Structures are given as structure tokens and as C-alpha cells.
């Protein structure tokens, strides 16, 4: 039997906190729920429906999914995206951690100059045309590397990583230094194990970035077999939208399906990336014990 506990302000707060979270779940889950049920609904009934939707409109149908998966580019797109995601993440994380760690080291004379050089690019860039000519001159046009290399480091992420490293006490770096460790060793043995949460954030930021990217692909690729998933998706949406609205178009089942396809595509393309999260989530839950590593 549990004892009756006193009503403390903190307990009141806890109750409200839970209620607030339930409300938050409600408002953030609804759009997701809507998309899923809409993607299974009857297109005709859905197009006549006005207002909130609580149940899928009968008769249920999988035709939107059939139409999406009939497009062979969905599969090639997925493979291309996975390639970009894999190689991209590897390069992103390596360069970002190297750069961020350098900026946390106290002492190097050129540190400020390099920091300023990096920050400057957050605000000023040459724009699309010279960027394109650069990719062309590097012979990267129409290769998947054009999707990986130009975004190898995101300056904002580098700064966030740096602030993660900075929260680790300097004394750790110094003592490792006195033990004769090189900076690379310190990065690998001290900084990375202590910054797992921030690194998990980096994986998420860069990973989702690669997953959703389409713009570079749209200007650097010339072969639809190389298009990443999101570019394929955009094209399908454009097609569905244009046949829905095409001037002079006749009766077209695609037109009716446009809404459904939109929802089915969201389901198909976001499920894989949503799956990533629970794997990373464990790094956000438990706090680290700096002392444990120190000792």
C-alpha cells in the first residue's frame, strides 16, 4: 500500500505537466493521423469531405500506394538517397567534429581567423551560378558526389558541435595532453565518448537534411536514374498536381488521386526516417557521468 502523500506545489505541477503533454500529443499527432487515414480513404468520398477527418472514408483503398510504388524511380530514388545519406553522414561527422574540436582548443594563433572564415560563409555565398560552375569544373556534374560534397560541413551544425565540446571541462583535455596524447587521440578517446548526445543530434540534423534534400539534385543531376527520393517525390507531386489542374486535360483518375498520392508519399517517405529516431533517442535520455570517466 502506498502512503497518501501531501499535496505539494511540485505534485500539482506534475499533474499539469502530464495534462499539458497529453494535449501536445493530441495536437501534434492529429496531422500525422490525418495523413495516414486520408491515404487509405476513397478518393471520391475524400474529395467531397469538408472539415476534420476522424475515420478513413470508406471504401478503403490502397490504390494511392499502388500508384506510388508502380513508379520505378521510387526504388532507385531510395537507393540513391541511402548512398548519399551513408557517405554524406560519414563525411559530415568527420569534418564537423574535426573543425569543431579545433575551435575548442585554446591556443592556436590562427584559430580566430579560421573561425571568422567559417562563420562568414553562413551569411555570404557566391550563389547558384558560380556554385554550379564550380561543380562542373570539379567534374562532379551528374554524379551523386555533387549531392554530398558541397554540403560536407554545415556551419551552424559545426558551431553546435563546438558548443557541445566546450561543455566538457578543459581540465580533461589538458590532463590528456600532459599524458602525451595527440589532439586526434583526445578527440577520439575523450571528446567523442563524452559528447554522444550532441553527436546523435548531428546524425539527426545531417541525416534528415540529406533525406529531405532535393535542390542540389535538381540542379546538378541530368539523369533521372540518379535522382534521390525527394526529387522523385517532387516530380510525382508535380505530375499529380498538373494532371489535377492541367488546362485542357480530360477526365483523369490521376487528378482525383492527387490528394491521396500526396498523403501516401508522405507516409512512404517519412516512415524510414522516423524509424531512425528511437535508435538515437537513447542518447538523449540518460545523462552522462563526467566523474565516472574522469575517474
Amino acid at each position, binding site marked *: 500500500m502506498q502512503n497518501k502523500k501531501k499535496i505539494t506545489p*511540485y505534485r500539482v*505541477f506534475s499533474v499539469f505537466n502530464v495534462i499539458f*503533454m497529453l494535449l*501536445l*500529443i493530441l495536437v*501534434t*499527432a492529429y*496531422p*500525422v493521423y490525418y*495523413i495516414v487515414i486520408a491515404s487509405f480513404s476513397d478518393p471520391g468520398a475524400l474529395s467531397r469531405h469538408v*472539415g476534420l477527418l476522424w475515420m478513413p472514408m470508406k471504401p478503403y483503398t490502397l490504390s494511392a500506394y499502388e500508384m506510388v510504388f508502380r513508379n520505378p524511380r521510387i526504388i532507385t530514388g531510395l537507393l540513391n538517397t541511402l548512398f548519399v545519406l551513408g557517405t554524406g553522414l560519414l563525411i559530415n561527422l*568527420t*569534418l564537423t567534429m*574535426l*573543425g569543431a574540436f*579545433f575551435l575548442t*582548443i585554446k*591556443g592556436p*594563433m*590562427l584559430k*580566430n581567423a*579560421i*573561425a*571568422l*572564415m*567559417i*562563420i*562568414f*560563409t553562413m551569411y*555570404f*555565398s*557566391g*550563389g*547558384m*551560378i*558560380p*556554385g554550379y*560552375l*564550380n561543380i562542373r569544373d570539379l567534374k562532379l556534374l551528374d554524379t551523386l558526389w555533387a549531392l554530398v560534397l558541397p554540403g560536407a*560541413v554545415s556551419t551552424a551544425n559545426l*558551431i*553546435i558541435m563546438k*558548443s*557541445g565540446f566546450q*561543455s566538457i571541462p578543459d581540465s580533461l583535455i589538458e590532463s590528456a595532453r600532459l599524458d602525451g596524447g595527440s*589532439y*586526434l587521440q583526445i*578527440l577520439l578517446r575523450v571528446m567523442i565518448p563524452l559528447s554522444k*548526445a550532441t553527436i546523435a543530434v548531428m546524425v*539527426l540534423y545531417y541525416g*534528415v537534411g540529406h533525406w529531405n534534400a532535393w535542390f542540389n539534385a535538381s540542379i546538378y543531376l541530368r539523369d533521372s536514374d540518379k535522382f534521390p527520393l525527394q526529387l522523385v517525390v517532387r516530380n510525382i507531386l508535380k505530375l499529380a498536381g498538373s494532371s489535377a489542374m492541367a488546362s485542357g486535360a480530360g477526365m483523369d483518375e490521376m487528378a482525383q488521386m492527387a490528394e491521396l498520392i500526396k498523403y501516401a508519399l*508522405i507516409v512512404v517517405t517519412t516512415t524510414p526516417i522516423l524509424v531512425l*529516431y*528511437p535508435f538515437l533517442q537513447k542518447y*538523449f*535520455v540518460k*545523462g552522462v*557521468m*563526467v*566523474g565516472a570517466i574522469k575517474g
Partner: protein
Amino acid sequence: MKNKKKSGLRRLGNDLRKYSDAYMMVIPVVIFYLLFCYKPMYGILIAFKDYSPAAGIWDSDWTSSYGFQHFIDFFQSYYFTRILKNTLVISISSIIFGFPAPILLALLLNELKNEKFKRVTQTISYMPHFISMVVVCSMVQLFTSNKGFITYLLSFLGGPDCSLLTRPNYFVPIYVLSGIWQGIGWDAIIYLAALTGIDQELYEAARIDGAGRWKQTLHVTLPGISGTVIIMLLLRLGNVMNVGFEKIILLYNEGIYETADVISTFVYRKGLQDFQWGYSAAVGIFNSVINFVVVMVFNKISRKVSDVSLW
């Protein structure tokens, strides 16, 4: 003079030797920036030129007014002050209301005792981030239409019974709140990560000193994430002029241009008629300069006050 230069060089030499392995680490990063960011940097010139693809960026003619014609055209636009004002209003309201929201969520999640509930809440709240803007905006329209439930709720408080997006004074709140709705869970992740970085021993020490939950939050948790908060705030302030056109275009209509039309949407509409590389580059540079100045100023303040800075 010569001596000083020499000693400077010598110091640099010593420095390079002393930190050689640190510099080795950063070389690939520097190469990346030189190759992919600085090599194409000459493209900035396009803002000062009448760009012609045949001539290329270097050989295109300078615009009149000493190269500043695109800027002058922008400043002289009938709507310049309005779109500048709207951009700032939307951006600053987003910062004031949108920036603290995920921090608050992270702190509240931190207070949940049931691990499973915490995980579920977190996972669900970050999902709207993955829904495409088109769908998010069509839902916002649905909720704020004359039959929408937000309109319905507001009508009890004296709100209008027509679509809220036809009223200029509702646009900014709708924009900001829907932004929070879409981003709160995702944006909280970085703060959750920062919370895990707090040394658990500090909580124990505070508990031994007799600090309650509230005191622990105030004296351990907040200082523990303040570095991340400040960095995120500085990064956000450095985007103060960037209000993307995509969401606004999906939400606004001509009836509420008065509060909803911003720099990016104006340039976008203009580009639909006739795309002008130089003009849009000039607008981009105008925004960047302001962003850069803002971030420099606040970075300096932050460094003085809190010892946290972007660099």
C-alpha cells in the same frame, strides 16, 4: 618595424609547430571551405552587374549608379518599407515566442518521471517536422477557415466568423503559432541533448544542500544548458532577415498583403514574371549584411556578458 614583422612570423612558425597536430586536423575542413565556399564567392559581384550568361559574371557590365542600381531599384520599390517592416515583425515575433517554446518543452519533458511516457511524447511531438509544408499549411487553412475549429473557438471570444486568414491582424499570430506547432518537438532535441550533458553529480550535490526541484532547475539545469541556449539564440538572430517564402505563399492572399507580404515573397512574385539574377542577388546581400551585423553585435555582447560566443 622589420623586427616586429620577423618576430610575428617567428611566433607564427612556433605556433604552427606547437599546434601542428591541431592544424593537421583542421586542414580538411579549411580545404572544404576554400573549395566549395570561397572559390565561388566571386558570384557576389552579380548583384552589382547586368548579368549576361554569354559574358559570364566577370565580364558582364556593371549596373548604373556605380554598380548599385539593383539595390536602388529595391529600395525605391513602392512597397520597400512595408515588406521590410513585415519581415522584421514576423521574424522578431517568431523569435520572441518561438524561440523559448522548445526550451520550455525540453525542461518539462525533463520533469516527467515515467520514461516511457517521456519517450512517446517526445517522439510524437517531433513528427510534424516531417510533414511537408504544403500539407501543414492546408491544415492551418482548414482549422482557420470559417468552419474551422479555431475560428469556432475564437468566435466565443469575440473573434470574426469568417476565415481568419482574410483578416490582416490574424496573420502573424497564425504564422508564429503554426511554426511552434510544427517545430517545437524537433527544436527541443538539441536542448534535450544539452540536458544530458549536465553532470548528474551536481544534482546530487544540490539535493544534499536541500534544494527542491525548483531550486535544482534554477541553479543546476538552467546554467547547464545556458551555453546551448545562447548559441542557438545567436544562430537564430543571425537569420533575422530570412523569412522563407514557401510557407507564406501557401498561407497568404492578396487581401492580407498588408501584414503578410515579406521581402522573400515579393522577390519571388517578381521572379515569376521575369527572373533577374542580379536583382535577387542584391536583395540577398542586403539581407545578409543586416544578418551579419546583427550577429556580430550580439556575439560581442554575449561574449562580454556570458563568455559564450559563436567563435
